[in-house]
């Protein structure tokens, strides 16, 4: 039996949905895109073009939920399905778009540059626990007008895992698509075997800004998967009551599904989000708050009820360094998300309210992910009888270690951590230098990066990626791309 976390009764889900549908009708949704407003009007919504408000009747939203697929895959560079969005699958990828990197040498955070981003991708590529790589670092050594697409360029060069990404503008989305087409071979190949998914964020409450709305429709039109990241902040940009915030999240995501499916019915879309509690003393948005995690797990239940693939930002911490707070918040979040059966959980590596990334944290979080994935496999009935026979066989002497039964099963039953998790005898631990978890993580970062194998990208594809990126860079005033000091 698979262990499962549940917050909502079917009656509560029905109430959340009916309130959300009612919000879509009154006051409706603000949409700062004429293209989307027209689509809605044609679809049967009441649209006020002057105020840019669409009032969506429930049947329109329900129909969109019907046409949205309940499951799809992301593919790796070799074209094999590697991430399953749908059902009870649970995957993890690093948190996205950090403005800062926690530098292990100085212990201080600073803006990341190209070499950091390459190291990050090589590390994430090598960590088995991570099912996809995200465009997690925003490089400060390129013009910011190309910062979003430049990270995708580096990720595509250095990993063959699927990619979770997002655009910061309307135009750069198209350049990012070009990069993805270059590695896929053609637009059609990309649509058939999507390598990447784009995060798109409505603005709370009930607003689609031009950028995110255009991104959403462009994804739909090209059948590149999109992940709806609605993020009401309880008490600041959404109700202080946690269920009230789930209602708002539901309404915002439903409006997203509607825009998306009107643009292209059947295109892949994910019920995701990044809502948070609001710290009423400091005015920060704690991603490690237990209430943040509760809202996430609850909205995922709503998404599952609607039959849609799910996503959440969990497994993050608000600590500023890799310390005990960092471990406890990340651990709780990852475990709860896995127990909620969320298909893609983004967050490993992230600190400081989604703004700072740490490679050491990523390595520790990979262990957490390993444990969380083990947890949801549950207690499996490996054989019948469950234990009677083998316990009798061992008898009162009890030499289980010497039984073939032990060798047969232990690998399947245990998650075997890397040396980042300390399980040494004390003397042994002291002999190895009495290292803390952060110190052990720093070593592992170097080990994994040292073991990185360059990807066999065909030279013409590599050239095309570079040309596309360079063209964008030149348009933004940068003649040459930075050289990554790396062996990759």
């Amino acid at each position, binding site marked *: 039996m698979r262990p499962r976390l549940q917050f909502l009764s079917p009656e509560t889900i029905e109430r959340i949905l009916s309130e959300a549908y009612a919000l879509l009708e009154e006051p409706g949704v603000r949409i700062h895109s004429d293209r989307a407003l027209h689509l809605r009007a044609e679809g049967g919504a009441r649209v006020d073009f002057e105020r840019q408000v669409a009032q969506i009747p429930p049947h329109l939203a329900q129909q969109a939920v019907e046409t949205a697929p309940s499951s799809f895959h992301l593919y790796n560079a070799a074209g094999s399905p590697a991430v399953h969005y749908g059902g009870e699958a649970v995957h993890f990828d690093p948190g996205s778009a950090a*403005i800062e990197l926690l530098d292990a040498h100085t212990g201080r955070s600073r803006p990341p540059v190209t070499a950091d981003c390459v190291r990050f991708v090589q590390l994430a590529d090598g960590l088995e626990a991570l099912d996809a790589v995200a465009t997690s670092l925003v490089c400060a050594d390129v013009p*910011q007008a190309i910062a*979003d697409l430049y990270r995708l360029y580096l990720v595509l060069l250095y990993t063959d895992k699927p990619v979770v990404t997002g655009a*910061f503008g309307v135009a750069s989305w198209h350049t990012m698509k070009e990069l993805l087409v270059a590695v896929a071979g053609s637009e059609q190949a990309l649509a058939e075997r999507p390598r990447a998914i784009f995060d798109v964020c409505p*603005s709370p409450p009930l607003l689609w800004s031009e950028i995110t709305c255009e991104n959403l429709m462009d994804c739909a039109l090209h059948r590149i998967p999109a992940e709806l990241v609605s993020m009401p*902040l309880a*008490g600041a940009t959404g109700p202080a009551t946690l269920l009230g915030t789930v209602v708002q999240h539901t309404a915002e995501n439903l409006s997203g599904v509607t825009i998306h499916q009107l643009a292209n019915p059947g295109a892949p879309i994910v019920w995701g989000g990044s809502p948070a509690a609001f710290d*009423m*003393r400091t*005015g920060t948005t704690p991603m490690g708050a237990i209430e943040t995690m509760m809202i996430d797990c609850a909205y995922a239940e709503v998404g599952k009820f609607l039959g849609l693939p799910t996503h959440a930002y969990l497994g993050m911490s608000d600590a500023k360094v890799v310390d005990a707070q960092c471990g406890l918040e990340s651990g709780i979040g990852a475990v709860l998300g896995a127990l909620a059966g969320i298909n893609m959980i983004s967050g490993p590596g992230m600190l400081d309210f989604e703004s700072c990334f740490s490679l050491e944290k990523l390595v520790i979080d990979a262990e957490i992910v390993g444990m969380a994935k083990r947890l949801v496999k549950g207690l499996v009935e490996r054989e019948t009888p469950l234990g009677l026979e083998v316990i009798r066989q061992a008898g009162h002497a009890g030499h289980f270690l010497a039984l073939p039964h032990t060798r047969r099963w232990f690998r399947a039953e245990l998650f075997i951590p890397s040396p980042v998790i300390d399980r040494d005898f004390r003397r042994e631990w002291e002999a190895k230098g009495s290292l803390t978890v952060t110190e052990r993580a720093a070593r592992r970062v170097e080990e994994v990066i040292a073991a990185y194998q360059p990807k066999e990208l065909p030279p013409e594809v590599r050239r095309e990626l570079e040309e596309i990126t360079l063209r964008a860079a030149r348009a933004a005033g940068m003649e040459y791309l930075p050289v990554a000091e790396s062996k990759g």
Partner: protein
Amino acid sequence: MEDLLTRLQEAVVNGEPELARALAIQALEAGIAPLRAIEQALSPGMQLVGARYEHGDYFIPDLVMAAEAMKAAMQVFEPALLARQEQRRVLGTVVIGTVEGDIHEIGKSLVATMLSAAGFQVHDLGVDVPAGVFVDKVREVGADVVGLSALLTTTMRNQEVVIEALKEAGLRERVKVVVGGAPASAEWAQTIGADGYAENANEAVDVVKQLLGVQA
């Protein structure tokens, strides 16, 4: 009469805009001078609120509601001041907004609230504000300070664009520029030639006070 001022102060401290408005009207009807009501009820009320927040008894929603109550009372007092050709003492005039291309609102609004609670006249231009709109507003209200918020590495450059526009309009010498938002920093402020940077709303009040030479 004293009782009325005490109750007005309490309405601010308890964050009750409707009550504050009603009491402000009553105060005027009772012949209390608006300046006196502001100085003896509203200002000490906001000071008490600030102290409670510092002490950990009050939280942000308490601050915001107190500021709303103060605003409601001021809406009653301002026309009366005008009619008497009096001016309330404000610590300074601030124009604030989130720069063009950026729609992050919460932090900017919090800074605006804290500044007005501290006694500044604040003009909040909202989000996604083009440089020209900042310049026009600074000129129109004779601002002492411009606050520029940016939450994206892609839009922080626009803080510099506003500074350039202020220079072009010949206003840069007349106004202090403070910047804030997740990607900004003291170094960034220096790089783009801003006068100050603050990491959060409380610090923003201190920095603005310091820049204008009013005691904190």
